[in-house]
């Protein structure tokens, strides 16, 4: 009779790698702060080289240096980066890549896909939250700007020709959206005026810093 083969299996506990996952998410988030996004519409664009790193790390065939080299090349190929990466972003990219390669080697192969999926969407979530908070800040500034221009929301609604418009339901002042293109001149002027003022104040802030 053949000797029975016995194995001891235990369920992999995701909680045990949470701190490491948090480190990876923070590192890639820091890196992406310095990555010039082409468009904020697709997940692919937002995640930049990080998505490629995650995908390749999952195979467990890449080493740290080659994967960092690959990611740097993707970064440089982005026309908006002009071939530049800040030292902080590079350090964060290196840290994140090193940690993820390490993590993928340590965890059971059956858990790799799940962990990568979590990391992928957690980083994406972090990025989108930042973007949405930023957009909300701009929207609030736009509302303040409009309140200076119009005495009340009725006056605003009349000027823009939009029924039921109030200061509370003003949307983000995009200059590329369809609603901007179809809008009345007064709305376009307000949007443009706001952006001019916003850019000026931003530049002033930066020069003060």
């Amino acid at each position, binding site marked *: 009779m053949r000797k029975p083969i016995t194995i001891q299996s235990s369920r992999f506990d995701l909680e045990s790698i949470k701190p490491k996952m948090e480190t990876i998410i923070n590192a890639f988030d820091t890196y992406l702060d310095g990555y010039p996004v082409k468009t904020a519409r697709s997940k692919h664009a937002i995640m930049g080289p990080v998505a490629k790193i995650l995908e390749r790390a999952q195979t467990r065939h890449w080493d740290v240096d080659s994967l960092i080299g690959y990611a740097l090349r993707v970064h440089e190929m982005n026309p908006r980066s002009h071939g530049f990466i800040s030292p902080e972003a590079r350090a964060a990219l290196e840290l994140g890549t090193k940690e993820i390669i390490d993590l993928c080697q340590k965890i059971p192969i059956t858990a790799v896909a799940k962990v990568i999926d979590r990391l992928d969407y957690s980083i994406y979530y972090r990025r989108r939250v930042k973007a949405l*908070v930023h957009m909300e800040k701009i929207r609030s500034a736009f509302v303040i700007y409009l309140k200076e221009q119009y005495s009340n929301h009725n006056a605003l609604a009349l000027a823009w020709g939009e029924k039921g418009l109030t200061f509370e339901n003003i949307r983000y002042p995009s200059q590329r959206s369809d609603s901007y293109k179809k809008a009345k001149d007064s709305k376009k002027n307000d949007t443009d005026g706001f952006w001019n003022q916003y850019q000026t104040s931003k530049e002033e802030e930066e020069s003060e810093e």
Partner: protein
Amino acid sequence: MINFDIFRTKAIQWMITRGWKEKLAKRKGFEQSLFEHTLCELDALITFFSIWADFSAYNRLTLDEQKILLVAALLHDLGKETDAWQKYILGKQSGYVSHCDESLLKEVLSEILPWFSLENSAEIISAVMLHMRSASTPGYVFAQAALGHHSNPRWKMLADLVAQIDNFCSAKGLFGGLTALERCDFIQNLSIDYHQVNLRGLSTTLLHKAAMECFLEKGWLPLMHYANGTIYAASPQDNCASPTRQEIHNRLTEIVQETLLGREFHQQVVGSPVASMLPKPDLFDYREFRLYLKTAAGRIGRASFKKKSEAEQQRVAEEYMRLSKTADAGKEWQLQAIRIAEARPEMLIFKVFKTALSEKLIDPAKLKIDQEADRLLQESCHPETPQGEKKYLAEIKKAQKKIWDGFQTLLAREYEQIFGQGSLADLLNTSTLMPAKDMARTIDYFWALPASRFDRQAIPDQVEFLRSEDRENLLVELLAQIAEKVFASLSEDNRPSRLSPETVADQFIKDLTHPLPAIPFQQVVNEQLKAYTQSKPLARKEGGQHLCPQCNWPFYGGSSAKADFLNNPEAHTNRAAAHSRPGYIVICDHCRYERFLEQLILGGKPAKTLVLFPRMGIGPGAGSLLQEKAKQIWTKFALYMSDRTPDPSLNISFGLTSEIAKKLAGQEAWGLSAEAVADLLTYRTSKETEKKRRKALENLLKENIGSQVEDLNSLWMTEYPTWDEAVDALIQGQVMEGESLRYRAESFSLTHSLEIICQTPHMILVSLQNPLGIGKESDTNAGLRELFILMILGLALDCTAASLADGEVISFEGGEGVARVPGVSALRNLIGSEWVGISEATRWIRAIASASQLIIATDYPDRSNLYQILTALTAGHILRRIEQKSEAGTAAIYHLEHLKNIEPVLK
């Protein structure tokens, strides 16, 4: 004198401000918030004060000592409010953390002492610091004695009293409480008794009430309520006696009678045309026969047959023409189909008549012979001998047969006198509703009668050509008269009468386990064993020894369950022998009456019953608050459901999670008042629905009152200038005319959809007529809605909340947590346990509330949307889904708020 009510109110406010409703005090064995536990202790102390007030022999507690005790009881577990201790109790911090925090105590005392103008706090500090056994070391006691600066020499006795009351309030369950009391030093200065019941459902609330009232009548004071009973205390000098079982039974009978008073029995007696027409013979009363016939007519509409396919209508009409002796064969099938549709309500009237006068309702074997005849039989047969007994029984059977035959003969004579020769035989040949047969065997006889015979005019002179309503009324009248005559031929005790409150109480009292004459344990075991060994072959047969498949109690006799009051009575059960003959399971009378009562109160079979228990023990003061809160909610709901509601557009729903979540936004469930809970569970119907309902109301008014505003004004004695203004006034509740209010209730669907049964603090039942799930959603999704509402109720009313499915036995006693997760495996897997605890409830309420707010944005299938959101791998997954489903491809800022709430529960 201390005004305990003012003190309690102040203490409650103070504890709520410090967030004690959210802080845990007990977790091992049962769960209780710091608020509840402290309130329990205050209630117990106040009860002791009132017992000892006239009892100068004991302790002679001075006013100052009472004040010290109250403050010490309020602050004894103060240290449990710290984050460190909360983490410790939740197992999030290693190492022991004591909750006797002297510095915190001194800090708080400066706030509390002015309530009673107390100056010295040394006794209070000693009482609080020594209430834990581990802290009460001889060294510490000596230190307190030497350095405590006590002004009261009885400081140690006061400290012991606080510690012992704490032990009593910390005990698990009724017996735990009794054991703890027995260990107290002051037990010799108290008389203690208790009542205990088996938890079942609605009958339990009535039994608790009966038992409690009997104890109060005897001079006992409730000390602590538990889900299954109450511990009572009294002064030994009062020599209070325990109420007897008979006294409780008598009170229970009165309570059952009060509960049944004014209920619409006829709605429950008359069943469904597709099932049994008289599913609850126990509720039948021959004096209400006319009402049953009228109710039967309303069970089916004339339009229902017209809605059937043309082929089906043709089939039925042709079958009728084949069966009928009188139908004009020359008539087209379409005409016959119209006649059949027209006759449907009358078919049901005949059905009820037939069933009510059959053996189904009057069992010939149970007919009683009159006393004189019985005496003569006994004299002639000598039943004391075996042969004589046999002869006697045979004679009784003969006498019963004679009564039954006489009854049948009279019925045939009376019926055929009106409907013609052979009509009764034809009636008896009908079965469940089969339009063709019923038309040929019952309606044809009736419709062929000359209308003039009954002083009615029709052209041609036949009943068939009377107005539908007239015809129905005539039939009801004729059949009711026949029934009156034939019932009159029976003696009063043989006429089918409604079961009495005593009979119901006889069953309900069986759940009382104390006070009870002691039954030898062996006897109980033997009874159960006997039932277990004999019941299997009889599970689907009436009579013999049974073990109730619903409540597991052994019983003898019983009767078959009907789908009318029990789901799937024919389903497989392990109680019956494998591969045995199919049939309806037999349940005990207790379970049957319980269901009858439930249906009578709610007006139908409840889809769900929510059970609210105190979290383990609850003092009399807190118990009254709980009852008061439940009653306030009920009063508001009852108004919304009645035709007197000032705003008929307000409806009640426990299942509209997103609406509830919107209203709950920014509020903590534990801080909700009764009014806020009621508001949370009401919603306003949409403008479109409101318009439709208004239109329906106008149609009803035009149809029944008149189409001009003058018609309304003359009936209402008002002077509305226009029709619209008059209708508006009716909708807004400014018109109080009964008939018009009924039309308003009908068009605005003001139905009695729930009932809150709150008799005592032990147990509150909320019976819901409609399920909580929306549309065809999955059990898991519906379970999440259910859990959401249970957690809100549990936190808002400081109780344990659970929902019971039909036939589910109560297997918990309160204190297991805030809410029980509905028994859906996917849901229990998601939550991670059977109960949601105090520390978890707020997190889950926020998560489910936020998930409900993301339903539209995520656009998951209706069947499982809530579940899909809450089982996403990360918040990023949900965000991406929102973006993909959004036209603009982006999420809104408010989505982030919801995602933040959901994130902590994602695994």
